[in-house]
């Protein structure tokens, strides 16, 4: 009967990406703490049968969530497969997501996630 627990994170777009998101640079989002396990991922090798919500929400989930809920146009400029399109940088609390496990980074309450496009070129 209770609603699933959620966590609040802040998302910001830079480098022109906000144009794809209704020209709104900052979003405060409430997302589920746990999400269904990725169907494409290897099932956990533990003994317990996987519950319906078993995996912490990660950035891969956030990318999908943004695409499904807030992306207004030209999704090919934001996503490619399960991740962001090449040329888009992701910062987790001001740190390159490549240092934080990229899409596998498990989101925490109050996280600041920034997506920056480099596609405007030089």
């Amino acid at each position, binding site marked *: 009967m209770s609603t699933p627990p959620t966590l609040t994170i802040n998302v910001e777009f*830079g*480098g*022109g990406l906000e144009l794809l998101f209704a020209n709104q640079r900052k979003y405060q989002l409430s997302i589920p703490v746990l999400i269904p396990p990725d169907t494409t991922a290897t099932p956990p090798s533990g003994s317990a049968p996987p519950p319906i919500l078993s995996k912490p929400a990660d950035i891969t989930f956030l990318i999908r969530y943004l695409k499904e809920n807030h992306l207004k146009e030209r999704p090919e400029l934001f996503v490619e497969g399960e991740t962001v399109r*090449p*040329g888009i*940088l992701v*910062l987790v609390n*001001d*740190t*390159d997501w*490549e*240092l934080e496990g*990229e899409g596998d980074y498990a989101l925490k309450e109050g996280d600041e996630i*920034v997506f*920056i*496009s*480099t*596609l*405007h*070129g*030089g």
Partner: protein
Amino acid sequence: MSESCGNPNFESEALMSRRPKYDKTKICVRCKLAMGSVVIRHVVYCKPCFGPMVATKFRRTLEPHINVTPDAGPRRKALKAPGSLLLGFSGGLGSVVLLDLVNRSYFPPSNSTGDASSEQTKSGNGIGLRDEKAERRGGKDHPRNLRVWDKGSVCYVEICGAFPGMRDRTEEMRDLVNSNFPQLEFISARLEDAFDDAWWNAVGGKLVDGAFRVDVSSEELHLSAMSGEATPADRLQKYISLLPTQTAIPSAIQDLTRLILLHTALYRNASHLLLGTSLTSLSVSLISSISQGGGFNVREEAQEEWIPPDSRSRPSQIPIRIIRPLRDVGLKECAMWAWWNGLHIPGREKHPGGKQGVGALTYNFITGLERDFPSTVSAIARTCAKLEPKQVSESHCILCQRPAQPGIQDWKERISIRSFIDSSIIPPPHVSRDGIFAKEKSDSGDLPSPGLTPLLCYACHTTLTSRSPRGTARNADMASPLPSWVNSRLSDSIATTRKMGEGAMRDSIRDFLLEEDP
């Protein structure tokens, strides 16, 4: 990584997908203390070390080319440029970062001798240029603290005139430059200026009576006299509309922009034209340039010197160095620099067809490569920098004014069905007494037909004609206008030829060039 002697292919594939983007540790490679904030080609930097790292790459590329005589080894002399500075500005990420770096490094506000102090006030969490330790070593009288260029200007070339309905962003760019970089003067130009006598006159070009048009349906690019009045924008649109492929459009825009910037630089007595081409963009343009026949000039894509064609009459003329100071700085570094310093990136306007060309495809390829295998992109640029044409060129293309590969005509004659012409001696067109008629003179019998082809580099010839001429219906509409600098030099050639007093030659000029005369 693995010490086992398993199947190397299998091993590397297995490692490839899960390999972290950084080497070994998350600690900054520079200070070896702080936790890293960004990974650049597998190397980890903390935020305070990232700024000086980018600034160092920028200076290392630019500063050896500032003084007239380049310094070898550690610099002792003060930096002093022989002329003013012009920055090419597109509104794109690289060019905004270039303006910011140039502004902070060489045009600090007058109440400050250096930029280190103004750094912090600009943005609370911004990143600086300087490594504090290096700064102390350099000292207060370090040559960096003297003004290297007396004057700096920013030139934005608006391309909307080529595409009806496209947004004009000149005022947006002017506001951005004036409000963020007040030490730099904003200059606006338009792509159609290339076809505008008034602009040509304003930048000190030699006005000629009568312009030429070129029949782009012929491989020889036959020339004839231009007739009728057309606005510069009409001429530009005609020029663009007659290009044979989508790929040719961005190439043509780039070449026209480059020459507009160069002539602006010349008029402004600039010794340096800086472009905001990043490592990523440089790799894209290198690959796409080679694929479009620009292999001979692959080194000029990275760095070049332009000696204005008129320089013989003005011996004191200094060549203009075209430098891309961000050519070791990737787009990721540019984006992080811009983000951490709160720079606004207006972005380059996409033009119709831009997405379909070879350039755009190469761009997608390179950005994908850069994400998954970050070191390969700098390897492309480094490899191309080592490429050197076997032959030295003494002539310059009349259109893009880059070195033209000798013997192009030989090759073109071999692949087309023509009688053999000994054209082993193609003189440099702009110093030649014979100019455009060099080839035709040796062709006995038929009337010579003046064409632009012998005066073009391979890449420009390809840009204008890569569609098979046999597949194209010839009609009057295939005659394209030419930029002012081409007209000017063609007129020189023809005036010279006229003076030679050869009856037959004069007749041929009349037939082909003065057909509009009563």
